[in-house]
């Protein structure tokens, strides 16, 4: 009974009319042909030695061997923090909201993570020591998730509320661990590479372009003419110029523009250009959020005696940013992908590393394998950003259907 009904549904969906049936058959045939070819290539033709031999290069570039313990330490800290946050978010869906942050298949997510962590080192043919480290880090993450979910309610609420502060602190600590300073030997940015460099550039630009974009959006709507004109000029200039030209420009003139002969390293110059570039787009996203807000909100806040800055901070921006969130995350995802342009100004982020590897005579003709891995890596990062933003949207949604 059950089976025949689902069969009927499938038939209704795919073969409702003759034309539908024809389209279904053609598409299935194409899918089969393409899928079979891809599968054949993946299993029999593709040679993953190019990835296996260069996995460290793809991950962290030419980071000095004797300093790599710092990255391992950072991975351990990140895994622990992620696990605790995950567990707590799971244990405390906001009781006043019907929409939950984590869907019921959150266990599935944990299982997928565990499976990937188990298989990936085998696929990459990492050495036993390194494989065990990865397994250990994953186990730590899952243990923290379990522990925070189980023990979380027993801890004082203040501790839980204060926990998110760990993330900015961890970011600063991570940057120090990577770059050196505070007693650690300095590792020059020219030694950073691969996924590490991509993530550093993208996260730096994402974190800084957000406040900058908000300020620009407010400036564009300011009553002070000079501030407004400058904001408009900046936003329109940046949006009118291709990123690649700005990157080349930044390498040449950023050192001249910044005060006191302060000339950051090439890596940081690129990061600043990315930041300034994305800020203009974030500003437009935020502005759309501000425009969408009824003027009555500001009026009500002011009528209650709130000064402008508090009305902005407590009433206008929380609502405007929520409206702007999807557009902003789209911008962040673009930003992550735009980091590949840095390979054109000679930085060895993921694409730069890939090009260097493919130029090695030992790995000639292995472009397909390399690009496929790159695409999958970027897809994973962007999917994570997208999932996170959707979860955030659900959590921030204060207009649930009347219960």
């Amino acid at each position, binding site marked *: 009974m059950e089976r025949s009904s689902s069969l009927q549904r499938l038939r209704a969906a795919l073969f409702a009319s003759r034309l539908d049936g024809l389209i279904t058959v053609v598409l299935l045939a194409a899918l089969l042909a393409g899928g079979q070819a891809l599968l054949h290539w993946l299993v029999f033709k593709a040679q993953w030695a190019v990835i296996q031999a260069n996995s460290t290069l793809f991950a962290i570039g030419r980071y000095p061997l004797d300093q790599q313990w710092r990255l391992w330490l950072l991975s351990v800290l990140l895994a622990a923090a992620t696990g605790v946050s995950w567990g707590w978010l799971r244990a405390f869906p906001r009781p*006043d909201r019907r929409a939950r942050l984590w869907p019921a298949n959150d266990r599935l997510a944990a299982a997928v993570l565990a499976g990937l962590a188990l298989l990936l080192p085998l696929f990459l043919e990492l050495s036993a020591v390194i494989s065990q480290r990865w397994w250990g880090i994953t186990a730590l993450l899952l243990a923290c998730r379990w522990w925070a979910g189980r023990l979380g309610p027993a801890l004082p609420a203040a501790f839980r509320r204060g926990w998110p502060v760990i993330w900015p602190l961890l970011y600063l600590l991570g940057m120090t661990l990577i770059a050196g300073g505070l007693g650690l030997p300095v590792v020059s940015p020219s030694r950073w590479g691969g996924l590490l460099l991509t993530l550093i550039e993208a996260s730096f630009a994402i974190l800084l372009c957000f406040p900058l974009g908000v300020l620009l959006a407010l400036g564009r709507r300011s009553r002070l003419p000079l501030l407004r004109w400058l904001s408009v000029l900046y936003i329109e200039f940046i949006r009118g110029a291709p990123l690649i030209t700005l990157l080349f420009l930044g390498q040449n003139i950023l050192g001249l523009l910044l005060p006191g002969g302060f000339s950051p390293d090439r890596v940081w110059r690129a990061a600043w250009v990315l930041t300034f570039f994305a800020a203009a787009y974030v500003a437009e996203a935020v502005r759309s959020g501000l425009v969408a807000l009824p003027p009555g*909100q500001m009026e009500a806040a002011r009528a209650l005696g709130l000064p402008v800055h508090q009305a902005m901070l407590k009433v206008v921006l929380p609502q405007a940013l929520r409206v702007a969130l999807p557009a902003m995350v789209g911008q962040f995802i673009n930003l992550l992908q735009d980091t590949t342009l840095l390979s054109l100004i000679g930085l060895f982020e993921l694409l730069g590393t890939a090009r260097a590897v493919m130029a090695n005579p030992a790995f000639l003709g292995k472009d397909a394998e390399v690009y496929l891995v790159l695409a999958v890596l970027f897809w994973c990062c962007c999917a994570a950003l997208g999932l996170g933003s959707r979860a955030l949207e659900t959590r921030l949604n204060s207009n649930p259907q009347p219960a």
Partner: protein
Amino acid sequence: MTDRDLMIEARGVEKWYPNGYHALRGVDLNVYRGEVVVIMGPSGSGKSTFIRTFNALEDIQGGSIVVDGMTLSDDVRNIDAIRREVGMVFQQFNLFPHLTVLENLCLAPVLVRKRKKVEVEQEALALLERVNIREQAHKYPGQLSGGQQQRVAIARSLCMEPRVMLFDEPTSALDPEMVQEVLEVMQELAREGMTMVVVTHEVRFARQVASRVVLMAEGEVVEMAPPEQFFTAPQHERTRQFLSQIA
């Protein structure tokens, strides 16, 4: 009445909109402590604009406004000081949709009056009790009906302990069956001695609650009288015409 009892004193208020429209043409009005003044008039007569000048939501180009002894000026600090003492209820409620009902009430007292959150919350719950809506304290405005939202908006204003309350067509955006519950809350407020200026089309409310009724037309005060006289024996032709239109 002595000057000590004068809550709002508007003298020759002039308002031009940036497009050149002359919205208020030398309007005078005195509101005394404990009074309920109802302002009526056709749309476009400037009545909403007029009460919005009392807390400087609209700036004025001529005349003077004194609220509770403070003369309204362009100074931001002066404006904020007056806004703390003047509560306002809007046609569109203007509740903050991202905050719960209780958070809506507590926001201004905590931020502006610098009061302790725990104390304010107790008072806020008592106020919600007064407007018969305590059980909704932890819901979001979007989950409430229009009448409930407007009662929350009244409670939110009261939470700042204002000396005078302004109502800008508080029932115009409501479904007919919800008008009464809001008017009852306002009536209760008037009985407790709150000074109120109300822009409304509700004749019954004006008859029962108002100390004085004002008719505004084309940016001027046409008639001002106690409700009995206003509705039964108006002095001006314009008033008779208006009353015949809304009857």
